[in-house]
């Protein structure tokens, strides 16, 4: 498993540098601070780019791989930047029975990314969610804040087409 997050932007790189230059004033160089530092970094930057992880490892004087181990272990840490739209495929019991994995596969195939990744154009990021509390609508996908029920692979195509048209309109009007 290799992760290839979209290339870091100049703006994000600035946030990383700012965070790393101020890290000294907020945290002491103790290994036990690793998780709080990572949480703070993610709050500031939006995700944990390699540059941030390497800087944190250097600050704490621990091997890079130890930071990477912790980041990949916990679901709360993300290696990929948030996309413009977030796609959360429900994998709760009802959605699982209703074919949640089939829906997940449809999203993966259409977006060309895996779970917990972001498309190279940063339009979409894909992840699972445990249950969103509307099991009668299974299988469910939450797009940004909006819950879409009774999803099928064809609906996935339809939703993506909707965004494509929207983007076309935007580029035409601008």
């Amino acid at each position, binding site marked *: *498993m*290799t992760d290839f997050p979209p290339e870091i932007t100049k703006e994000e790189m600035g946030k990383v540098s700012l965070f790393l230059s101020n890290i000294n004033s907020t945290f002491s160089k103790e290994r036990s601070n690793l998780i709080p530092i990572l949480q703070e970094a993610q709050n500031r930057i939006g995700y944990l780019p*390699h540059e941030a992880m*390497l800087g944190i490892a250097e600050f704490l004087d621990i091997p890079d*791989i130890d930071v*990477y*181990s912790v980041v990949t272990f916990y679901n709360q840490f993300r290696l990929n930047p948030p996309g413009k739209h977030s796609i959360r495929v429900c994998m709760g019991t009802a959605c699982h029975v209703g074919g949640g994995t089939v829906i997940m596969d449809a999203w993966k195939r259409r977006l060309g990314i895996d779970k917990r990744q972001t498309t190279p154009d940063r339009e979409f990021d894909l992840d699972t969610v445990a249950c969103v509390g509307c099991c009668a609508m299974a299988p469910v996908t939450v797009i940004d804040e909006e819950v879409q029920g009774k999803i099928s692979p064809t609906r996935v195509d339809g939703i993506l087409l909707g965004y494509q048209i929207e983007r076309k309109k935007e580029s035409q009007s601008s």
Partner: protein
Amino acid sequence: MSSITLTIDNKKVTAPEGQSILWAALDNDIYIPNLCAIRERTDPAASCRLCFVEVEGKPMPVTACTEPITEGMVVNTKGTESQSLARTALELLLASHPVDCGHCAANNSCELQKAAKHLGVKLNTKRYRKLLKELPIDDSSPIFIYDPNKCVLCGKCVWKCHELGIGAIGFAYRGFDRMVTSFAGQPIGQSNCNQCMECVSICPVGALVAKENT
């Protein structure tokens, strides 16, 4: 340091105080299956779950690597319950291990083979459905090959790499995806690995092998 006398499999043995059952047994030519045990390590990982033994007076089997020896202790390494636990752990490992010993550089020096023979488990166990990781092989190092599919996640190489102050490899991800890798999953040859080959010599299976042996 004073020595302690205990009984392992009806054999009276003496071992230094503070030692665990596993090392007391191994030092006295009594084999207990193990993958993750490192003698120098003060806090055993106890992750392989192969070294279960039964100790008289204890209600449940214990892992021999974490249980310190006591005077007059009576240990049975061949108890039905402990062997059943160890067998299950081994069969689960084998269920996600590509068993192709004939083409493996670790053939005949493999700890999995040794444990399987000892516990009477077939290498091609049918008890669990086969589920392989199917990850790419890393041959980026000029002198060794890392095959994550064969890895049993014992953590010996990770411990050694950190102990030597290199810290090029470590664990990443969780659950079935858990694997030994370098930072950001980059090929080991491009990491800060200095090709000392200590991980290769400590690997109990064929996950890390020297290129000259393949």
